[in-house]
């Protein structure tokens, strides 16, 4: 043994820790040896002593194994608890660090809160609309099936066609048809219009949802001619009208004057096809007109069948039917789409995905900014790190501490962000729930919270690692290098390149985001100013449904045949127009932006023997003579309708500009006779201005107007133009309708502007959200730019002081610093513009009449960012120039 003596050996014994294996072996060996010695001391021969010791000790191998087992478990536990202990220390340390620099902490946390809050809110939207499965059994197997017009547009299905599909399709396990109804529920003088659905008895089975109470329709109740006076209630209607009383089963409901027996109640949350409150049997009939298409059809794919197979099979069936019934089905096709698309259109899906991408960018930008702030701090903390390294902290330990600091920051940011999301979500819901499907169910559920948690963890690790990476650059960690850092007073490689690239990235991201926001915002302004072609100010709209007589005998019982319906609307509009303060009153079969639409094929001009396949499609509206005046739709040529345009005078129609252009290019449509797909022929007596009735953001299609005197229509919207309080006008409408027939219900009475505004809810929501992002992005970019640039300048204070002390002109110094900031920003602007230009295609989905490469937007944002950069680098530069060189030199 070397002559170091007892002290060294004892020290070694204290510090030395053998492995568990070694530990057990040594301990047991020692025991056996001592035992042997002891026994030899009592006079045993060595051989005997050895055997006796073993006997006295027991099974050495087994005992050794047992000890090793326990020992290893002990080691693992100790490591784990040490790890936790270290972690707790790191957290405590990180919190202390943040408390020590509250300004840095609040900026970083706020930045993260903005990023995480925004990303959580948008994910909440995506979750509600896109991710949550539809509330039906195995919803992925459900499809919608529709007919397509000869022009290829999706259309409804006729009753005989549906019945034939049902008989012939083999690759669907269930099929059902339904169509909307709006019966008036009368209950002791209190009339209420309900949103109801006439559905086949297979409807509930196809969706895979059973009643919560009672039963649903039987096949017999769903047969034409059967006495199908039964109804199934929604859970909401049951609660609202019957207080959730189970005795409701068997009760009688007065729907449009007919008694229906309540047979069942659906479970809460069951809502098909959207906002339905009541289901009655549809009872589709073979004998209905095959060309009268009103049904929507859903089906469930048979086990093993794909949507494509069903589509192919349906195409075949449609071809057969077209041969069997050429008059009604010639040229018509079919379409099979996932049911989910009926809820979320591909367009809405694209918009939401675009939003998610935008918000992800925002989060990345928040990360980049916090990372560059942390990096700036890491450089000033180099000295601290060097001290820790010199005192024996491993690199892993230091990196871990930095990551923990990042996580602490991101958790604080996430808490603030989720709180912000919790506030923002009800706002978003309130703004868009009425018009955007499924948004009303948006909540901060576990999935959204889980997403926030993951986003927070990833964020924390990512920007926690940035300064750690920087440490990696200055890996040294060897004592000599650390001592060098200590001696030089904390200066070493200052990670300039990494920081510069962070500034450039941050600016590029800001450029990208701001350009997107600018484009979307610009298109929103256009959207708001778009020429609708009609005036919706000071107009009240109200939906009226007359109970329809199925047989002439019915009209005696307060039900309306064609003649009575025409007379009713003529009279009610005449009375309304005569009321004081009312400027004009009319009626139309589908009000603008009410979501209703009707269309039909027509034979374009200049052709004599065109087949139905060559017909063009046009929307059509039945109107009263006062309609154009009530909406101030300008007559361009010819005349408007008068009360004289009623059967049996020759059929006339008025068309819009687009139809005139499309149907008679270069020619004059006035006086032309137009053949419709229904077989009727009528002459054009007038041309009016185009009006956007369906979407604010799409051009109006060809439209024809028919006089209600020749095409009586039972379900009309009244349009009343009157200045002043809309509520008073609404009352007037209700009063006049009731005066004519107390049994007719008026629904959806509202200012027409409301309908228009509702239909812009989706773009409005998107723009609001993008605008919020844009402001956040601008703030983040400014903070990031200012933070890093001003930090760089302060790092250079010593150098600048030397230069100033040596006589450099202050203006030159300022210019130098300013130039650096502006150069980096310019580089970021260029890169960001390139990215924005490249991603222009994705933007097209949410833009309205705005080019995704709009030059003004690009230039404006670039100038804005450069100004911010100049300010962010100029102010600290000026400060540096004003500092007394001596003070700067003495500091540290």
């Amino acid at each position, binding site marked *: 043994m070397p002559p170091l003596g007892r002290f060294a*050996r*004892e020290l070694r*014994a*204290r510090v*030395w*820790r*053998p492995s568990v294996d070694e*530990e*057990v072996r*040594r*301990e*047991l060996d*020692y*025991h056996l040896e*001592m*035992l042997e010695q002891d026994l030899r001391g009592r006079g045993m021969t060595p051989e005997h002593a050895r055997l006796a010791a073993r006997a*006295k*000790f*027991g*099974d*050495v191998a087994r*005992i050794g194994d*047992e*000890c090793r087992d*326990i*020992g290893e*478990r*002990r080691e693992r*536990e100790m490591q784990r608890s040490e790890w936790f202990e270290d972690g707790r220390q790191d957290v405590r340390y990180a919190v202390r660090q943040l408390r020590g620099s509250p300004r840095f902490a609040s900026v970083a946390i706020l930045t993260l809160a903005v990023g995480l809050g925004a990303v959580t809110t948008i994910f909440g939207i995506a979750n509600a609309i896109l991710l949550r499965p539809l509330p039906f059994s195995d919803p992925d197997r459900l499809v919608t099936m529709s007919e397509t017009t000869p022009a290829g547009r999706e259309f409804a299905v006729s009753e005989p066609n549906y019945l034939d599909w049902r008989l012939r399709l083999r690759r669907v396990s269930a099929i059902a048809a339904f169509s909307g109804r709006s019966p008036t529920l009368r209950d002791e003088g209190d009339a209420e219009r309900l949103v109801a659905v006439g559905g086949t008895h297979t409807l509930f089975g196809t969706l895979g949802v059973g009643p919560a109470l009672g039963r649903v329709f039987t096949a017999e109740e769903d047969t034409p001619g059967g006495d199908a006076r039964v109804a199934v209630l929604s859970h909401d209607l049951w609660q609202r009208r019957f207080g959730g009383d189970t005795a409701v089963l068997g009760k009688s409901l007065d729907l449009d004057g007919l008694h229906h027996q309540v047979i069942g109640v659906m479970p809460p949350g069951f809502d098909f096809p959207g906002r339905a409150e009541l289901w009655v049997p549809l009872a589709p009939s073979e004998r209905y007109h095959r060309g009268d298409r009103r049904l929507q059809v859903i089906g469930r794919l048979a086990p093993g069948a794909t949507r494509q197979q069903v589509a192919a099979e349906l195409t075949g069936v449609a071809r057969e039917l077209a041969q069997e019934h050429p008059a009604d089905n010639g040229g018509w096709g079919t379409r099979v789409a996932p049911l989910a698309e009926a809820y979320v259109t591909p367009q809405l899906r694209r918009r939401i995905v675009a939003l998610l991408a935008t918000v992800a960018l925002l989060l990345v930008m928040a990360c980049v900014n916090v990372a560059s702030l942390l990096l700036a701090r890491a450089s000033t903390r180099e000295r601290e790190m060097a001290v820790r390294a010199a005192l024996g902290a491993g690199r892993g330990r230091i990196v871990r501490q930095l990551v923990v600091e990042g996580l602490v920051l991101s958790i604080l940011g996430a808490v603030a962000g989720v709180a912000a999301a919790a506030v923002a979500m009800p706002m978003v819901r309130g703004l868009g729930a009425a018009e955007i499907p499924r948004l009303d169910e948006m909540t901060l559920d576990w999935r959204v919270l889980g997403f926030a948690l993951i986003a927070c963890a990833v964020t924390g690790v990512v920007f926690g690692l940035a300064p750690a990476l920087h440490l990696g650059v200055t890996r040294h960690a060897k004592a000599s290098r650390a001592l060098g850092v200590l001696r030089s007073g904390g200066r070493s490689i200052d990670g300039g390149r990494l920081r510069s690239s962070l500034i450039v990235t941050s600016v590029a991201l800001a450029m990208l985001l701001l350009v997107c926001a600018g484009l979307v915002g610009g298109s929103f302004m256009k959207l708001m100013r778009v020429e609708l072609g009609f005036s919706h100010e000071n107009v009240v709209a109200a939906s009226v449904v007359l109970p329809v007589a199925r047989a002439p005998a019915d009209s005696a019982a307060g039900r309306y045949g064609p003649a009575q319906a025409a007379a009713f609307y003529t009279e009610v509009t005449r009375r309304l127009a005569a009321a004081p303060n009312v400027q004009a009153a009319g009626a139309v079969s589908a009000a603008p932006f009410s979501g209703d639409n009707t269309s039909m094929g027509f034979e374009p001009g200049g052709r004599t023997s065109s087949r139905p396949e060559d017909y063009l499609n046009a929307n059509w509206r039945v109107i009263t003579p006062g309609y154009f005046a009530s909406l101030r739709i300008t007559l361009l040529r010819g005349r408007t309708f008068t009360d004289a345009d009623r059967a049996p005078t020759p059929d006339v129609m008025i068309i819009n500009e687009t139809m005139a252009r499309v149907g008679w290019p270069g020619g004059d449509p006035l006086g032309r006779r137009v053949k419709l797909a229904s077989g009727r022929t009528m002459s054009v007596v007038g041309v009016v201005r185009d009006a956007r009735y369906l979407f604010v953001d799409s051009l109006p299609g060809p439209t024809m107007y028919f006089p209600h005197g020749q095409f009586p229509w039972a379900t009309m919207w009244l349009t009343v133009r009157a200045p002043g309080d809309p509520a008073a006008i609404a009352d007037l409408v209700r009063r006049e309708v009731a005066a004519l027939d107390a049994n007719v219900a008026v629904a959806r009475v509202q200012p027409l502007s409301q309908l228009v505004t509702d239909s812009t809810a989706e773009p409005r929501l998107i723009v609001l959200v993008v605008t919020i992002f844009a402001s956040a992005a601008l703030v983040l970019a400014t903070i990031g730019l200012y933070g890093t640039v001003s930090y760089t300048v302060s790092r250079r204070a010593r150098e600048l002081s030397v230069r100033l002390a040596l006589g450099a002109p202050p203006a030159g110094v300022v210019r130098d610093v300013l130039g650096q900031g502006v150069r980096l920003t310019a580089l970021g602007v260029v890169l960001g513009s390139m990215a924005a230009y490249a991603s222009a295609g994705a933007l097209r989905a949410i833009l309205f009449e705005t080019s995704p490469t709009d030059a003004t937007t690009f230039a404006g944002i670039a100038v804005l960012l450069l100004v911010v950069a100049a300010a962010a680098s100029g102010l600290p530069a000026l400060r540096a120039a004003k500092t007394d060189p001596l003070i700067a030199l003495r500091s540290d």
Partner: protein
Amino acid sequence: MAEPTELLHGTLDALILKTLAWGPRHGYAIAQWIETNSADALRIEQGSLYPALYRLERKRLIEAEWALSETKRQVKVYRLTKAGRARLAVETKQWERFAEGVARILLEPT
């Protein structure tokens, strides 16, 4: 003298704790101490001492440290922790109650 008694299950832990209450010891010394102080009335397989020691160490009732023995060998020396001392008090109480109960029945004059 009768045959040495087999150890009751679980009492070995208490005996080790009691032994260490007199001061730190290595494994062999603990075994010696128990044998001597029970006047050889208790028979333990000396090896079974070690799993018990490892278990107690894992439960942090005792702690160990490597030290040099009288013969200048590196040995693991065990010492009682605070938790171990408390446990010893509990075990002693329990044993008293147990022994008392057994005695009350067995020593009852028949």
